[in-house]
């Protein structure tokens, strides 16, 4: 590392821009609870009270400038403890971005292989189903032909005006040289329903120590935050640095390291970003076509594919009609509540395969089944969008649908066992839960017009054939969402006494 870079953060005159980030004192040497001030807010909530959002992708060409940016952003970063204003900002970093910011190779190598390699390595693209017209080479952002996104900024605000002010304030912190905003992803105002007309984001895991108080059935904290015991009672691998690399004791000590080490991962996690263009017309055309063939109402056919009624009502609890009068039930289970065969909610339905609850081995219907299921959970934090300005390939804008879609965001500590497993083994897999030729009807990768959607019925099932692809992958990336202390650490940059031995 060039020693001159260590002075970089001082280039930003924080005093001139409002409250300076209080440099955190030495990290406590022990303590079992989560330090909420150290966890970025997006882990704890999707900022439902802030309906406006925009995501900015930045490329860092100069490490010092990148660190200056981080230092400038720090006072604005929203932690879980400070999640109450009319604005919020969270910061996520790509693997190459971390390298640009000066993180030593030894630390970079300790991140998970999925994050290190990135979402667009060829084998990973094949695994996720990002092939053909979904391939990264066709993407609007995050692909090999797009500008690299080293820093992903998530900005939220209570109103449109507020978001504009917020965005301007953040943009003013971007150094003129060495950092460039390369992607702007506006979002639609947060609504009750998604573009397909369905309530979304209903089933989220309750995480011990974040939302729940450690009740039975809560998912282990280490599934969503690095540095804590996960569902197997061990700490997921993450970058640990020699204690000497952190003279200011910004970071927490790592309890599970052989030699005295500090934990760069603690209170951080991985953020998955995927942009899906959604062909709403094709979805409803398909629902109407098969409504005519099956004699079922189109809304019911659509609900069967989604796995819930438009209001969010469970098909298992209310198989025949949407029940808008009652609050959405999310405590149900498929087998325990008598829907083993999928006569209410089809086994192939999107919601059922994204979270099969007690549907799978071992012993469907048992607590053991739920425990295994809960090793593959995601905290979903996505937002809808109406336009994707960076997309050159969204059609000519005349069709009703041009450009609509979802910026899917999710948080998990183990990309391979959580996000990638769900996408591959539950959504894409045509043989999910013993099915044949049946990928997820909404989010599954399959050749166009090739999938089958079995709709169980007595005494003879329906089958919806020639399943089109309603979703097209338009961008994405894997990011590290550091804890606040880790952000401070990264912003303060490498110094002479911080080199790894």
């Amino acid at each position: 590392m060039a020693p001159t870079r260590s002075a970089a953060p001082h280039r930003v005159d924080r005093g001139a821009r409002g409250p300076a980030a209080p440099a955190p004192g030495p990290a406590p040497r022990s303590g079992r609870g989560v330090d909420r001030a150290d966890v970025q807010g997006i882990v704890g909530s999707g900022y439902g009270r802030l309906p406006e959002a925009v995501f900015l992708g930045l490329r860092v060409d100069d490490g010092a400038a990148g660190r200056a940016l981080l230092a400038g952003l720090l006072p604005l970063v929203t932690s879980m403890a400070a999640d109450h204003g009319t604005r919020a900002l969270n910061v996520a970093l790509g693997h190459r971005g971390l390298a640009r910011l000066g993180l030593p190779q030894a630390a970079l190598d300790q991140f998970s292989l999925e994050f290190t390699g990135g979402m667009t390595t060829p084998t990973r693209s094949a695994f996720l189903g990002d092939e053909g017209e979904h391939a990264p080479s066709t993407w609007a952002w995050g692909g090999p032909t797009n500008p690299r996104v080293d820093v992903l900024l998530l900005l939220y605000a209570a109103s449109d005006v507020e978001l504009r002010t917020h965005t301007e304030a953040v943009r003013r912190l971007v150094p003129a040289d060495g950092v460039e905003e390369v992607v702007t992803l506006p979002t639609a105002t947060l609504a009750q329903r998604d573009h397909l007309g369905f309530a979304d984001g209903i089933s989220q895991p309750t995480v011990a120590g974040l939302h729940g108080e450690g009740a039975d059935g809560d998912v282990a904290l280490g599934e969503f935050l690095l540095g804590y015991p996960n569902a197997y009672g061990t700490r997921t691998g993450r970058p640990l640095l020699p204690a000497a690399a952190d003279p200011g004791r910004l970071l927490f000590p790592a309890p599970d390291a052989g030699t005295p080490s500090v934990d760069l991962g603690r209170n951080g996690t991985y953020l998955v970003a995927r942009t899906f263009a959604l062909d709403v017309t094709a979805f409803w055309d398909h629902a109407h076509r098969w409504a005519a063939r099956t004699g079922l109402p189109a809304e019911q056919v659509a609900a069967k594919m989604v796995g819930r009624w438009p209001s969010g009502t469970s098909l298992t609890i209310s198989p025949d009609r949407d029940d808008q009068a009652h609050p959405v039930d999310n405590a149900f289970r498929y087998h325990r509540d008598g829907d083993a065969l999928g006569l209410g909610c089809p086994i192939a339905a999107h919601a059922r395969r994204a979270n099969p609850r007690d549907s799978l081995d071992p012993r469907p219907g048992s607590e053991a089944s739920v425990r295994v299921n809960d090793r593959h959970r995601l905290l979903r934090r996505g937002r809808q969008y109406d336009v994707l300005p960076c997309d050159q390939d969204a059609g000519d804008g005349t069709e009703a649908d041009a450009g609509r879609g979802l910026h899917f965001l999710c948080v998990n500590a183990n990309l391979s066992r959580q996000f990638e497993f769900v996408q591959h083994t539950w959504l894409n897999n045509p043989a999910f839960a013993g099915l044949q030729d049946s990928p997820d009807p909404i989010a599954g990768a399959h050749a166009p017009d090739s999938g089958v959607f079995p709709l169980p019925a007595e005494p003879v099932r329906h089958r919806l054939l020639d399943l089109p692809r309603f979703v097209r992958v338009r961008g994405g990336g894997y990011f590290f969402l550091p804890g606040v202390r880790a952000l401070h650490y990264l912003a303060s940059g490498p110094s002479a006494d911080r080199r790894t031995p």
Partner: protein
Amino acid sequence: MPEQSAVTVLAPLPAEHHDRAATALADLAGPDRAVPAFDRLAGLHFARLMLLDDAVSPSGTRVGPSLLYTADLDGPADAHLQALADVSGPGLDRAFSCCTDYPTRPDPASRTAWLRAHRIPEAAFYVNTVGRGVSQVRAEARLRKGLEAYLDEHRDDLVDLPPAEIHAVLRRHALTDPDLRVGVVPARRPPLWWRARELAHLLAVPAVLLPLLPVILLALPFVAVVLLIHELRDVPDRQRPDPVAVERLRAGEDHVAHNPFAAVGFLKPGPFRAALTRTVLFAISYAVRHVLNRGSLAGVTTIHFARWVYLSPERMIFLSSYDGSLESYMDDFIDKVAWGLNAIFSNGLGYPRTILLLWRGARDEEQFKNHLRTRQALSHVWWSAYEDLTALNARSNAAIRRGLARRTLSDDEARDWLALL
């Protein structure tokens, strides 16, 4: 309904021919896929060719590279060797011609002799469903497709009939279609002599061991203490797999419904581990032969075939064909059968630390996954007879056939049966 056999052929490869053999296998996996003509070998479920790299044993001896051929098949193994030597001759020649003693002018007879000479035994061989042959799997897949298509077409005419009557209609339809007719008769059971032999083995092993039981029980506490001492001295792997190697392995995975898996490793040194490994493999072999032979390996329903083979007294290979991704395979192992994995694999060098053979080990998720990826070997050439079918698919197709083969079902039985479609 044939019984299943395993074939394992191991041939040492002169080190100087390593690259030539690797190229030959890469061709057979790529542009020359059709050369071995595995699809012309009746009764072949899975076949693979691998190049095992050289290695250094814990005692410091150098083990040269070798070539491995394995097959999971219906019927007797020797008949497969003969068919292979004949039908797949050009493929065999391409793969094995680098081996020192491979016939210089190969013909079916000399190839067969060579294959027999290099065949090695399996220490244990798991078959998902004993007796279900390739032709049955394929016929039942066609049957299901045919019945599904008929239901797609005629659902409206059927829904108002009682379930038992729908079953009867489907049966009549199957009788008229030559492709589906096979489904109206049940799959044949294995021959009587075979069932008698299995029964004899099932009874003979406990009969022999029973008198030894007091001795075994007395010895158990001492074995446990020795085991604990060994486990305390074990040194688990700490390294993470090499990203480049993982990419190479991944490139060969997740193209069809199932994947090949292979892991090679040395046993922990010493007579105690050697004896323990033999004992555990004996138990596994007995269990998979008589108990775990109907679609589930102690709760894991995604494995078609698996085998454990001694490459040398101190080095083993585990091979399997499993459904889904390696991640889901490893998760299944950890979540459902960690104790079983521990019992056998903890005798391998570098395995995550176990307690009394069965506990911890694989439950140390990340270490276990790193260990498997580190020990994983590339299955250079791999062939499947039914690429689109998972083991659960084959099982459910067989259940469809069992139901169709019955002349009549009650309404309740027919309702359950129709839910399979």
